[in-house]
């Protein structure tokens, strides 16, 4: 009897345990994500009627997993229709499968990299000009609103339009585009030549040797060139009565046909049409000089609300200037951009004018973002800044400071550093310098202009009391001026309200005998950390 009871218990227990065992893990083999949103790949896959071909390309080029991974990308995804058209035209192929040679796959890789940016950009950040970050091929994409009609009519690279935009995913943004963007392969001159609207100017570049110079993609120091070329189109030349290269020669350099000679007028004319500053129309300075490739010369840029005026005569009566034809400008290429000017663009001799030279934000390497803030680089990274002895130096961009563009060169522990100035028209100037001083740990410098010491020492350790701040008369007698009111920090406090941001008067009467780039050197007398913001020249009668 007892055993029977026990047996019942045991059997009962077994049955019970069976039940326990039957508990399945319903969630086995499921992966959990922190968000329900799909990735870029997931979104593309859920719209095969639109994106199956681009997905095939992604798989073939092995970028498939990259766009599935964590991040914040911008993916410009051409539609199936667009890709089909592109491969038919360029490869005579009707499916991605047909593109299988090593060369083809390499090209597709470039294509994908060119269509992908490392940060998510919604259409709300599109502007007339280049987007602030580069694609994985290191190129800037441009967006243009010239066709009107708002976002849905935007052109990218003046080449393709948006089919659908701002598709958000958990690792970035997709913009479906109705064409495939051609990756930039051509440098500016070749791009101009292919577009075929600037034939006379292209010929002039060839004859003067500038075609090769402007075609160099990487400078000697390894950094990428970005040329901005301002050219007359054949149409603009025609209005000036110039219908061939010969007509242009007859106008510019009638008696000298040694076009490769740097002193030849046509050579100088072509050199004057380009700058190493990277300028889409939106980037032209509001009121400043742009140094040209032609040495010792500059283009004067002035912006009104609607118009860019280049080389305005400033006589006060019947002033003339040159503008850029926006609808025929902002054409991107591998190493820069080109624009069309609206009249014959000849070398201009500017009058002295107030020049503020921001030692960082006026540098081409800053404008093309080759060198980022806080990134320590050797002096060879900069074309127009040098220091000795060699060491890695950085610049800072800090919104808590009232510096122009919030940038300063952050340099210490060198015997000297020097800048090539912008082109300064000849004349008599006051010269001032501003850095973040007023602190005992700062440096003391002797300043040299073109190799000659000028002025008394620039002592950045002086405090408010020492320089007479904020009494302007007292300050002036001690060689100082208040900083500028229009440059403020993130709290709205201006340079003028900070004693450390006072401007030091290097010279009250500096004679500049020649229009060119000059050299300003800071020789260290007492070393210390020395954030330098800008140097300025104010014309005096």
């Amino acid at each position, binding site marked *: 009897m007892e055993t029977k009871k026990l047996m019942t218990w045991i059997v009962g227990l077994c049955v019970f345990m069976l039940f326990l065992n039957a508990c399945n893990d319903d969630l086995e083999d499921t992966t959990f994500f922190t968000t329900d949103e799909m990735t870029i790949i997931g979104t593309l896959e859920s719209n095969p009627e639109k994106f199956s071909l681009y997905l095939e390309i992604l798989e073939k080029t092995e970028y498939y997993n990259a766009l599935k991974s964590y991040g914040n990308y911008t993916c410009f995804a051409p539609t199936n229709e667009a890709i089909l058209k592109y491969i038919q035209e360029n490869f005579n192929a009707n499916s991605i499968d047909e593109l299988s040679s090593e060369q083809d796959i390499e090209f597709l890789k470039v294509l994908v990299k060119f269509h992908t940016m490392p940060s998510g950009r919604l259409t709300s950040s599109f502007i007339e000009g280049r987007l602030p970050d580069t694609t994985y091929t290191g190129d800037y994409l441009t967006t243009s609103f*010239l066709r009107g*009609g708002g976002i*849905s009519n935007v052109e990218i690279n003046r080449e393709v339009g948006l089919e659908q935009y701002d598709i958000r995913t958990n690792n970035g943004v997709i913009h479906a585009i109705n064409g495939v963007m051609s990756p930039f392969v051509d440098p500016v001159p070749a791009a101009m030549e292919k577009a075929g609207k600037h034939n006379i100017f292209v010929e002039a570049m060839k004859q003067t040797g500038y075609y090769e110079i402007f075609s160099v993609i990487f400078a000697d120091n390894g950094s990428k060139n970005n040329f901005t070329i301002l050219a007359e189109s054949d149409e603009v030349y025609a209005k000036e009565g110039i219908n061939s290269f010969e007509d242009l020669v007859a106008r510019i350099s009638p008696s000298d046909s040694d076009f490769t000679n740097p002193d030849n007028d046509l050579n100088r004319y072509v050199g004057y049409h380009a700058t190493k500053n990277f300028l889409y129309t939106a980037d032209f300075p509001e009121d400043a000089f742009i140094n040209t490739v032609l040495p010792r010369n500059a283009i004067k840029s002035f912006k009104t609300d609607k118009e860019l005026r280049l080389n305005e005569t400033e006589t006060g009566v019947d002033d003339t200037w040159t503008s850029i034809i926006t609808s025929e400008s902002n054409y991107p290429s591998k190493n820069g951009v080109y624009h069309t000017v609206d009249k014959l663009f000849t070398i201009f001799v500017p009058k002295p004018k107030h020049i503020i030279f921001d030692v960082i934000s006026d540098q081409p390497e800053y404008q093309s973002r080759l060198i980022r803030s806080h990134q320590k680089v050797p002096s060879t990274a900069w074309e127009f800044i040098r220091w000795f002895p060699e060491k890695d130096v950085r610049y800072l961009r800090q919104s808590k400071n009232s510096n122009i563009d919030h940038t300063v060169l952050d340099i210490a522990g060198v015997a000297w550093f020097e800048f090539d100035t912008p082109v300064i028209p000849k004349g008599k100037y006051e010269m001032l310098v501003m850095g973040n001083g007023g602190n005992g740990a700062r440096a003391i410098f002797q300043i040299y202009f073109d190799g000659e010491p000028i002025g008394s020492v620039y002592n950045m350790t002086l405090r408010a009391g020492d320089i007479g701040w904020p009494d302007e008369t007292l300050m002036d007698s001690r060689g100082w001026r208040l900083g500028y009111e229009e440059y403020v920090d993130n709290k709205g406090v201006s340079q003028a309200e900070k004693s450390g941001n006072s401007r030091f008067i290097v010279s009250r009467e500096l004679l500049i005998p020649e229009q060119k780039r000059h050299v300003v050197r800071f020789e260290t007398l007492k070393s210390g950390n020395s954030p330098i913001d800008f140097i300025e020249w104010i014309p005096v009668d």
Partner: protein
Amino acid sequence: MVPMLLAVLSSCDDYLQLEPQDNLIQQEFWQNKEQVASAVAGCYASMNQSGFTDRILKWGELRAEMLVSLRAGGNEQNMMRNFIIPTNGLVNWADFYETINYCNLVLEFADAAKEKDLSFTNQELANYKAEVLTIRALVYFILVKNFKEVPLVLTATSNSQVDFYPAKSTEDEVIAQIISDLKIAVQDLNLGYSQSAAYDKGRMTKGAALAILADVYLWNGQYNECIVATQDIIDSGRYSLVEGSDWFNEIFFEGNSVEGIFELQFSDLNRTYQSSFYVGSPIYAPFPEIRQVYAGYPDDVRTNFATFDLEQNTVFKFAGVDETGVYRGQQEFFNTFIFYRYAEVLLMQAEAYLLSTENKNLDRAANLIEMVHQRSTGAPLEVPIDEVSLLNALLLERQKEFAFEAKRWYDLLRFARRNNFQDQYLITDLADIKSSADDYELILSFYSDKESYFLPIFQNEVDLNPNLEQNPYYEN
């Protein structure tokens, strides 16, 4: 077993009582006149929420040029360059449909209340219904001016029989409904309520319904009807222009002036004006060229320390106290929100006289514009008597008179879209004013498409309602 089951079944009685214990339900609420009255008051109260009045101000001003941002949010700044995407919360119309639903509830249940309450007269019932019809018409008119096509919901969502997924109606359909509602309302509404001025201006009256109706006619190009409607207001004799010298004080500082026709009243502060214009931390300032708008008439009472304050660069109209330059404190924004006033009736009639084919009368139009112009400037308007000159003068007079009163964008749009957008330049020229050196092409592009002059439907609404089609410009 069976008896036990039965016992259980029969004990369910109380348990099946589903009506909530702590709240009134619809059928129990609508018992008498007082409850209808409070429901009507609820319709008004639903409008003096900042979600409602903020949008009235922003929809009417931001896309036009009169205001610039001092510290506006991203949505507002995007609207100021006519870059509006469907996820921009500013285009959410939920507050407007909420008011419409309150109106629909009254229209649906007031009859039942009358049957239960013997003291509730036919006339009272008709008046209440006319008030809510007018409110609903006003709200639909605002929606149609902004979205062009909206779902026309005329039944309350009080039971599950209602269509929760209404599609859009056309502009014509919505306007036809507005007009027919207002015609009924005009018949049934009182001229006034023999109570306070605030009550007369704050409730819908015959004058208010006529003013909305005239505005709708103008929008819809029915100029002869507009002349009749505005004339009815003029003939009622209840409204007049305040003296020029009292322009700022009576109309804007004190509010509910003899000129006011419908002004939304606030039991608390007018949060919209307070947050937008309080002098201590204004969000918006007048655009830099504001002084030029008033140029040519040095004695215009509508300028400094009236419409704006040149020195402090503020919108004085709603934030100021008097011509000495004193401002309202942050807790002193007791402004009404003016929807219609008599000056606008005169200018609406002028516009109708200029544009009507059968009743075109340039002299009468000129006289009407003069009345508003001379009241403030004390000087005659020097304008040649021809249609184009007078239309230009009228648009300018409206700009000066109703600056910041959420009228400007609709004025520009109404003028621009006549004759198939013959005067589209009125809007594309905004790019000149709104752009800086770097973004002219961008802003011009945002203003270039005619479809973009109407707002997108809020993305959430499109997601929830499969029958709701996004407006054409915003399909993506």
